[in-house]
């Protein structure tokens, strides 16, 4: 059974001046454990698509299923990561990380133990009583990921999750987050406008058209290397070919 099934999703936004079609008849499937990338020109509705899968937004037509179950709203099996880490500066790292558990009334000893374990495993245990401003950009992003993992979702949605970071940090955080997601065995759907980032992290890549967004192309990304990581993928000879293929399809004009 696929982890995520997106069937004929369309979305129109309504304003006083009229309707704006944002998404047009989008369908795809994501298997369990797969890492999916979605790229598209800005304003193509890729974030809208992710909000719909997250259950934050209702589609105008079509439906989303999570492990065969029709999605009706926010689903605890889905974790959502946003553009900025959005850590609450009035909370310590530990308090930030257990935010999701608080909201879902899941602050139980075994969940807290899981959080403890995650903090330990990913090197934030000594920063648990620090405030977000005392952490580097990379560590903040890691804390944000642990906050998402704390509620133990099966599927992670990453909405331009790295675009607020500077380039060097971003490369390192790509690698870091990718390894954590793989280690935890999560299914992931990542939306980005960065072609390189999409190629180096995903196993399958969807290219979206301009508004109204449709899926123009699906690319299987395979590298001839064992244990690929985003950084090693960037050095693979196939990387450039994939890049050119996607670039052509995106049809960017200035």
């Amino acid at each position: 059974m696929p982890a995520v099934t997106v069937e004929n999703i369309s979305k129109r936004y309504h304003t006083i001046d009229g309707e704006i079609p944002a998404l047009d008849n989008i369908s795809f499937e994501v298997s369990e454990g797969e890492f999916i990338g979605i790229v598209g020109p800005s304003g193509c509705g890729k974030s809208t698509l992710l909000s719909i899968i997250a259950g934050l937004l209702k589609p105008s037509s079509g439906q989303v299923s999570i492990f065969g179950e029709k999605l009706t709203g926010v689903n605890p099996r889905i974790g959502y990561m946003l553009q900025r880490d959005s850590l609450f500066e009035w909370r310590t790292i530990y308090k930030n990380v257990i935010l999701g558990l608080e909201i879902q009334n899941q602050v139980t000893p075994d969940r807290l133990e899981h959080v403890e374990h995650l903090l330990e495993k990913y090197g934030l245990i000594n920063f648990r009583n620090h405030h977000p401003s005392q952490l580097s950009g990379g560590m903040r992003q890691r804390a944000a990921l642990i906050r998402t993992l704390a509620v133990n979702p099966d599927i992670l949605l990453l909405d331009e999750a790295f675009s607020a970071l500077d380039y060097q940090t971003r490369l390192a955080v790509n690698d870091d987050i990718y390894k954590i997601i793989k280690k935890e065995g999560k299914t992931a759907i990542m939306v980005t406008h960065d072609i390189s980032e999409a190629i180096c992290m995903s196993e399958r890549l969807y290219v979206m058209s301009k508004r109204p967004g449709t899926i123009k192309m699906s690319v299987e990304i395979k590298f001839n290397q064992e244990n690929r990581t985003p950084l090693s993928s960037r050095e693979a000879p196939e990387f450039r070919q994939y890049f050119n293929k996607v670039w052509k399809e995106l049809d960017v004009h200035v």
Partner: protein
Amino acid sequence: MYKQESEEQKKYLQKLKARKRLITALRILLLIFIFVFWEAVTRFNWLDPFIFSSPGRMLNTFIRLYNEGSLMTHIFTTLWETVVGFLLGTIFGILIAIILWLSETCSRVLEPYLVVANALPKIALGPVFIVWMGAGPVAIITVAVTVSLIVTVLEVYTGFLETDSEKIRLVQSFGANRKQVLTKVVLPSSFPVMMNALKVNVGMSWVGVIVGEFLVSKAGLGYLIVYGGQVFQLDLVMTSVLILSVLAALMYFGVQLLGKWISEKY
């Protein structure tokens, strides 16, 4: 942060400290200068002490009032009216802001009323309150509450609306309901705005109470000021104003300390 401080760092810190001390010293000197200058010009009769009073005469008035035993009654009357007005204005202001935030319809409907209420000089309602509630502390406190209430509502509500929408999305993605969005994101992130409203309200409540006492009262600092003005006892007026400014400052620092304490605790 390095544990071991370099010479340069030490010098920098010393300079910082020296500057802070200088500022404090200058502040105190300025205060002393004002009082000495005031005393001098009235003593040499460059200004008429009968009209301008003087620090010496104010001190005498203060001691006289204290010995008569009425001073504490006046101070206490004004103080409790102000504190009650301040608390009610702040609490109700924040509560109304929360209601407006919870219901967009409600806030849209009430918007023009709030704008008008904000522009209206609340003091104009004083006589109305006196008729409705009688010439007593209830009317005075009501004036104080109306002065601070609308400003609090508008300021805090605007603060609520400025909450980072991505943080709200984040908690919604965890399945938060409207109440959780309020308690987990909107209220804590608006804490600085609320503290600011509190500080503004200190001043507002004093205005409300003193004006209320001008209109109707048998005791309180506002009463002393009006009475002193009517019988041409400027010593009494100036002494009351001075006591008032000390009390207002104390209350302001109290609120500031409270804010610091709360933000350190959470």
